[in-house]
């Protein structure tokens, strides 16, 4: 059993845990499961359908955008690159775990932590795969507003990181 559990990917483990927690909540709060499914059927179908669209968008980007795309454009550590890093982050598809190898590689190549924070902020806040969900549920205006917010939040996060690092430097910076 333990061997089987270990062999599963992290996404499958999370899914199984979520199903387990849902079961516990349903039992603990005596949720009417039939009613719950009937009430949320349309929403569930819409989400699953939008997931298929999102995966299609992610697939196209995966094949169109080269692997070294982010690496190529983030080598410079100047402040203007905080914006570029955010923009590249918003265009990079995939879950955050999938981009850690890119982030690590960028760090090895000498990209500063502030740029990495801007990149991570942009990547996690918004992305192409979110478009069908947010436009479908909240409208185009909402999604455009979120893109705009993400493009502001990324550089601000990078600048704040620089400010904090002056007070509390990263360990590597202390050593150097």
């Amino acid at each position: 059993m333990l061997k089987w559990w270990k062999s599963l990917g992290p996404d499958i483990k999370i899914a199984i845990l979520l199903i387990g927690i849902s079961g516990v909540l349903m039992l603990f709060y005596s949720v009417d499961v039939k009613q719950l499914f009937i009430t949320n059927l349309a929403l569930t179908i819409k989400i699953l359908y939008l997931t298929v669209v999102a995966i299609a968008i992610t697939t196209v980007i995966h094949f169109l955008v080269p692997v070294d795309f982010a690496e190529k454009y983030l080598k410079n550590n100047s402040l203007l690159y905080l914006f570029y890093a955010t923009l590249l982050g918003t265009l990079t598809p995939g879950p955050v775990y999938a981009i850690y190898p890119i982030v690590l590689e960028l760090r090895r190549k000498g990209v500063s932590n502030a740029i990495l924070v801007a990149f991570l902020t942009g990547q996690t806040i918004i992305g192409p795969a979110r478009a069908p969900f947010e436009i479908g549920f909240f409208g185009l205006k909402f999604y455009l507003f979120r893109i705009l917010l993400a493009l502001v939040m990324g550089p601000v996060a990078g600048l704040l990181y620089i400010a904090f690092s002056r007070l509390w430097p990263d360990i590597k910076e202390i050593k150097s």
Partner: protein
Amino acid sequence: MIKAVTMLKYFQSQLWRTLFLVGAGVLFAVTLSSLIRLEAVDVLQEKVALPLQIIYGELLGFISPGPRYIMYPILIKLQEFGVNMGVIIALISGHVLIEPSTFLVEAGFFGYRFPIKRFVVSLIVTFLAGMAAAALSGFVC
């Protein structure tokens, strides 16, 4: 032609894993949203000031488990109940910016100072984004 086949294979491999994860996430989210009561949201809106609601929203987002897409059913329910747009933006942004599992991963990769600082920075930028959304909610929706 070969590229199209490769793309289709990749699409298929991603699709089933993601659908399973999203399906489980949706189950969790609809279960959780069925526990949200309109009266509780009303009390929260009446008794708690908006900036504090935004902070609650982002902290709730930070600790919420699961993939990005599971927030949507909860957000739709909250929007139906008339929750301020700033809180919705704080939840949607806070949910993905940093979470306990990524905190540990980042500490392993970059040292513990990196995720601590990123957490504080995320807290501030999400709050600012929430406040901006609250101020501009008339234009957003």
